[in-house]
């Protein structure tokens, strides 16, 4: 059984949120008796970007709440989408009068809960729109699936839309920006271990001592192939090849990347992997203009990582990524 530092599995999200706001009172506050984390900074009549989802992916999303990024994040139970009333409440507290834009990861639970909240907000006369992030290419997108999952690329969406909002863009402009952004971003992950949700006694899946799993999601979902552990170079080769296949040929060879740790993999290994990504991108005559490395969108204590490529089709993306923000974890 996996050991965890907690008091009661049923209260883990509640206590985590309290721990966050007690630790960073200058940046964030909790809407009392909810799972909503809101930024403390003054409202300035701009569009509010709001995101959220199940917990267990920390620092996502609450670590990205703050000036220049998210106005609020809604934390659901572990791996469980938050409920419509909570999302509605977050929309209300975040609204600065210029409308609220929701960033939703593509899971049936998130889609349905956010959709209901959006309907309720509309009924209350709040200007509202949303985008669904589905950057994970491990899952086939077809009529016969839920579509691709939203994973680490979501953090780039927060950053770029947060910058647009900060710059005073309208909700319509932000919607257009988001719709152009999503198709340019692809992610794929791999795991060295499964995960165990707090309170359960069994991991989501188990891998042998020399096995890895390609294409895992961020909720302990199994991936597309199981293999012997390989060198970092070979792992990068597999992931990069899969990612590049998904991009249409195009003369624009400039990218931003995320090497995202899934929670249990040390930064040292993430940088060894990042080194191989940089080298192999160069071999492919592709330029990396911005890199983010670290635990950004995790899956509890899972060992493994994901690689995200964002094609810099719009110069605004890079400008947005480089801008400073005032959050705990960007």
């Amino acid at each position, binding site marked *: 059984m996996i050991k965890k530092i907690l008091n009661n599995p049923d209260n883990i999200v509640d206590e985590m949120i309290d721990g966050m706001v007690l630790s960073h009172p200058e940046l964030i506050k909790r809407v009392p008796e909810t799972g909503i984390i809101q930024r403390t900074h003054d409202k300035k009549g701009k569009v509010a970007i709001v995101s959220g989802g199940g917990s267990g992916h920390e620092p996502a999303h609450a670590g990205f709440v703050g000036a220049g990024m998210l106005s609020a994040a809604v934390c659901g139970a572990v791996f469980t989408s938050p409920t419509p009333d909570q999302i509605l409440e977050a929309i209300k507290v975040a609204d600065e009068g210029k409308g609220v834009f929701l960033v939703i990861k593509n899971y*049936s639970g998130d889609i349905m809960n956010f959709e209901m909240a959006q309907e309720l907000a509309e009924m209350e006369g709040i200007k509202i729109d949303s985008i669904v992030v589905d950057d994970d290419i491990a899952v086939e997108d077809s009529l016969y*699936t839920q579509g691709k999952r939203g994973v680490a690329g979501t953090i780039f969406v927060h950053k770029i839309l947060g910058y647009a909002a900060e710059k005073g863009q309208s909700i319509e402009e932000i919607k257009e920006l988001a719709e152009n952004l999503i198709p340019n971003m692809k992610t794929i992950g791999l795991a060295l271990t499964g995960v165990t*949700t707090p309170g359960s006694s069994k991991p989501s899946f188990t891998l042998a001592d020399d096995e890895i799993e390609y294409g895992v999601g961020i909720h*302990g979902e199994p991936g597309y192939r199981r293999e012997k552990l390989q060198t970092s170079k070979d792992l990068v080769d597999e992931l990069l090849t899969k990612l590049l296949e998904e991009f249409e040929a195009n003369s624009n060879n400039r990218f931003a990347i995320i090497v995202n740790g899934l929670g249990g993999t040390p930064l040292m290994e993430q940088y060894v992997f990042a080194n191989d990504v940089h080298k192999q991108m160069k071999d492919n005559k592709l330029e990396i203009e911005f890199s983010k490395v670290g635990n950004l969108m995790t899956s509890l204590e899972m060992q493994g990582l994901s690689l995200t490529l964002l094609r810099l089709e719009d110069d605004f993306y890079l400008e947005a990524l480089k801008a400073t923000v005032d959050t705990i974890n960007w």
Partner: protein
Amino acid sequence: MNIDMGIRWMELFNEKIQNEKDYLTQLDTPIGDSDHGNNMSRGMAHVVKAIEEQKPETLNELLKLITTNLLSKVGGASGPLYGSAFMGMMKAETAGEEWAKILKTGLENIQMRGKAEQGDKTMVDVWIAVVEAVENGELTHELIDEAVEATKPLKAKKGRASYVGDRSIGHIDPGAYSSGLLFHTMLRAEAE
């Protein structure tokens, strides 16, 4: 269905959910994210607590209470789906419909929200079988079990289970199983 039966139904359903919490989560492990037991247990605990506290006096009040609690306490995919189902049922009850039609409206609302069809390996498969049987006055425990079991050989096309593709074959859908418990306990409450 009436208010006393309805309250009894929820008590029995809650009992089943709490007893089978771990099994529901176990079903949600190979093809999901290991939380369906937690989600349903949290939601149903709130439903029975709210019944005790608010003492609903009409079936309509009860359906409303179930709707609010499932919608605001479950989350995930099952929260909005069960919530939508009971919201539809409440509306149909307000409109004075019969129980068969009420259940059917519940199913319609699930499908409106989740866009799943028969055979997509979701709770919808069980609801379709049950609604049809209730319309024909032929609902039995066996029929429910069969409908739940029938999700096993299917390949999932909706929800989280669809991500594992062919690997979803051979596993019972957790939402179908919890819906099975819902209808087993409905039958029992009606029979008491």
